[in-house]
């Protein structure tokens, strides 16, 4: 059902855990839909120095969060904002069609954390000017 890479990230999730004093925090999803992702960013000179995630969800939700954190770690905030759910799926070696929404959630969690950082620091990140995470109910139906 899942690719080897998905199973690897599920079994050994990268960057999992809580972060104290994060510079940006983003949480998307809700318990009703069965998945929630929370991403914490440590940012210095517009570079993502560290990233952590916490996820309530299925195997692919955990793997998608883990992969998304890998893909943005060490990148600049301007690069990170370009992360798409397709890139997450590709890096995971594919996701079953019913699990695509997990990758969407991962993309949104990253954007939401970046937006939080931008708000706190009065910065403008291109592409996130008027960012609003998709309504939870919408993601539920994807």
């Amino acid at each position: 059902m899942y690719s080897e890479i998905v199973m690897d990230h599920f079994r050994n999730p990268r960057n999992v855990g809580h972060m104290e004093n994060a510079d940006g925090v983003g949480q998307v999803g809700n318990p009703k839909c069965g998945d929630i992702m929370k991403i914490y960013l440590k940012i210095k000179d517009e570079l993502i120095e560290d990233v952590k995630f916490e996820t309530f969800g299925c195997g692919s939700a955990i793997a998608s969060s883990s992969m998304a954190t890998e893909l943005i770690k060490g990148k600049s905030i301007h690069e990170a904002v370009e992360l798409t759910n397709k890139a997450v799926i590709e890096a995971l070696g594919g996701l079953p069609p019913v699990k695509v929404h997990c990758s969407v959630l991962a993309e949104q969690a990253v954007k939401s954390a970046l937006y939080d950082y931008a708000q706190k620091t009065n910065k403008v990140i291109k592409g996130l000017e008027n960012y609003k995470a998709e309504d939870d109910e919408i993601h539920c139906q994807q």
Partner: protein
Amino acid sequence: MSKKIYLDNAATTRVRKEVIDEMSRYFDELYGNPSSQLYELGRKSKEAIEKARKILANFLNAEEKEIYFTASGSESDNWALKGVAFANLNKGKNHIITTKIEHHAILHTCEYLEKFGVETTYLDVDRYGLIDLEQLKESIRPETMLISVMFANNEIGTIQPIEKIGEIAKEHGILFHVDGVQALGSVKIDVNKQHIDLLSMSAHKIRGPKGIGGMFIRKGTRIDNFVHGGGQERGRRAGTEGVQNIVGFGKAVELASQDFNHHIERLTVLRNRLIEGIKNNIPDVVLNGHPTERLPNNVNFSYKFVEGESILLLLDMEGISASSGSACTSGSLDPSHVLLATGLDHGTAHGSIRFTISEEITEEDIDFTIETMKKIIDRLRAMSPIKNDEDLKK
């Protein structure tokens, strides 16, 4: 990997060796068509079917001519509902009463029957999964033709007061169908004492083969045929009989009837050990289903703040097979309709795991499962952004 522990016996069971042995003769040795009565090979097949029919009839306290073989429990459910509906619609009867926690073979059939003018009342259940007999009585209309209630629920194991429901149906002259797929072999079924008119059964839940179901139809019941064609099953269900499967079904029921009480006692002890072990070792869990009125092999808990599919994947890595009521495992958007009907919130329902044991499970298996679950839940909770009931409600 260590030993495999199969704890999904409500999904299906391992076929008993004795059943396989009995069946195997009917593939290459006794392969005659039971309709071919003019030679011995055909007659032998027919005899084998009638022997199985007799075993089932005895087990249910029914008559042999009231037992029919179908291809599955789902076919039996379809036959019961559609057969009764089509036979009664033109008699001014168009109402069925069932429950919110039935198997989809019932729920989707009721939905389909709406196209033909059938109206359905879906009874609520309480937090333990039990229906309310008063609500049942209040739901009865002059047009009610059928009450269909599952004996025991496949997900949470709750056993309904079937005899009392049967009395109410009988009092009102309404046919009573019981989906007995999960109950067969685990609960005493007596179609007369319990006033059952139609009973759906399946072989593969009681260590028989897949692809064979059964139905008890009380004689004189007004019901149309469902599969039309040849004259098999006394003209009521067409199609060349799956002789080897029928033989296997008969053998499985025979074996189940032989050590019935001992089997239930043993499973109940193991079930309670698992329930207590989980309750005492893992915080923030909710037992789904009834504490005592439940199948002797069913253990269903919700583990708050974590999601079911993740638990199943980690269990599988430890060699344990189970199932979940989470949406992620069903391919649908919502968690199990059964758990939601008991009033469980979505977030908690997503973290539900069902273990269903068999007589092949040992105390050591149960203890290993408890230990493994504790580790898995700790691990997933450490990863979860939801830490308390408040987070869960958001």
